[in-house]
């Protein structure tokens, strides 16, 4: 039981929070710009390397430098939107999907050119785990990841339901034409979508990078579970995407627990396939997700 909590449940929540933060952006972009953003994982990596570069210049706790990574990811997102995606907006969205596929490659190769392709370990290496009641061994990073995500979820929810920008975003996601007729500034909404999506992607990337190590494929490897989370939560439902992230994270970790007998239910080497299978099953049987999102 203790083993289950320490090695499966808590890590499940931790990776779940990474997925949750990434999936929010994917879900919002899907809802407002109406395309699947294949460069979102690599946008995460951009954020991580931004933080990494900053730690080289200012050797302080990497958490203090997260804003640098966020700023870099936001800049990168706004830049590619302006230069690559916006000119394609009037065409069928599949062109933007293909374009984002290329942007993913551009991000990754830039990172490899500038940062090299080897693994990078952040900060001072091993951090002692938190030990509660002598039995629960929690990695402090995991606790930080989950609490940060929870706080972000609350703030984001308030932002979306109370602020003018947040409501405009939901309105554009609901009906872009009526939003235009109501005089809303859709380009501003698009900008905010990128800002929020990229900032959260950078935070998610840092948690993922601190947990293991940072490498150029970090974000790409997280992309499909994040898509799965966004679809699970229902497209255009940011809170649903958050929940979806945790569900996918837990499903991945718990699938390799030895539920029956001695051996893992599903071999850990197929862990990543769990998210894909969930995603494909959802796409087929319940494409509107668990929380009644929109179908595109």
């Amino acid at each position: 039981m203790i083993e289950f909590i320490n090695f499966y449940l808590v890590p499940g929540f931790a990776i779940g929070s990474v997925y949750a933060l990434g999936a929010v952006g994917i879900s919002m972009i899907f809802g407002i710009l109406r395309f699947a953003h294949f460069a979102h994982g690599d946008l995460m990596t951009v954020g991580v390397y931004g933080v990494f570069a900053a730690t080289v210049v200012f050797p302080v706790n990497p958490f203090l430098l997260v804003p640098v990574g966020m700023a870099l990811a936001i800049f990168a997102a706004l830049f590619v939107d302006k230069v690559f995606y916006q000119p394609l907006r009037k065409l069928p969205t599949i062109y933007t999907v293909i374009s984002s596929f290329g942007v993913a490659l551009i991000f990754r190769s830039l990172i490899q050119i500038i940062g090299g392709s080897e693994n990078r370990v952040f900060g001072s290496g091993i951090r002692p785990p938190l030990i509660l009641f002598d039995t629960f061994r929690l990695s402090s990073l995991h606790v930080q990841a989950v609490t940060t995500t929870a706080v972000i979820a609350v703030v984001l929810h308030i932002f979306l339901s109370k602020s003018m920008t947040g409501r405009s975003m939901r309105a554009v996601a609901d009906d872009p034409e009526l939003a235009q007729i109501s005089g809303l500034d859709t380009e501003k909404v698009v900008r905010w979508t990128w800002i929020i999506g990229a900032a959260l992607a950078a935070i998610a990337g840092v948690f993922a990078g601190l947990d293991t190590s940072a490498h150029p494929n970090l974000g790409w490897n997280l992309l499909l579970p994040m898509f799965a989370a966004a679809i699970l939560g229902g497209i255009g439902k940011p809170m649903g995407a958050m929940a979806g992230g945790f569900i996918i994270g837990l499903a991945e970790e718990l699938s390799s627990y030895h539920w029956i007998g001695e051996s893992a239910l599903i071999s850990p080497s197929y862990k990543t396939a769990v998210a894909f299978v969930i995603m494909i099953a959802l796409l087929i049987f319940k494409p509107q997700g668990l929380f009644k999102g929109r179908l595109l």
Partner: protein
Amino acid sequence: MSVLLEVKDLTAGYGGPAVIEGISFDVFTNEIAVILGPNGAGKSTVIKTIFSLTNVLGGSVQLDGKTITDQKTSKLVTMGVSAVPQSHNVFPNLTVDENLDIGTYAAPPVDKMATREIILGLFPDLRDKLKQPSGELSGGQRQMVAIGRALMCEPTLLLLDEPTAGLSPAYLERIFDLLLDVRKTGVTILMVEQNARQALQIADHGHVFVNGKNFISGTGQELLADENVRNSFLGGAAS
């Protein structure tokens, strides 16, 4: 009576051939003007063109003497024009309150809460639905939300595309009564209507379009009395 909106020789389409051709009419300050015509006549297209949602191929639209033909839609909202489209006229996943709130973003009214109170006074049905997603309302209630949203920016000119489509006769009369109340608050209304007889009864002027062209214009009473209009649009003899 001064002219608020002057449409002159307006020709427009959707990228292909012109859908409306050489449409001309005037809307006077604080009146209710009605656009009539068979399905596909181009009524919605006229409304959309005034609101800069189509491709203008010729002619002009003037608001208060200023040409607005190539203003952006969002700019028109700030100039006091507000519109309710024929379908998809509420944000279904947003609550009634949020829908109304969206109406204030482009052109904030002086006192948002006061404006909201006036509108809820006009549409008391909405008062106990404020927290409900608009997608869950009845057709008539949705229409009220849509008109309410359009009124939240305190427009001088309200464009309505078939505000009574699909409503029961009782609801239809309520909406028309409401529009008379709205007019009393100083708003000019230009609306497209299929329920020609009732619409002409509350209208100051009516404009009939056929095949994208002017067919006949006149006061509500003149059109109600007109032989041609009666035969084609009012179902024969007068009541």
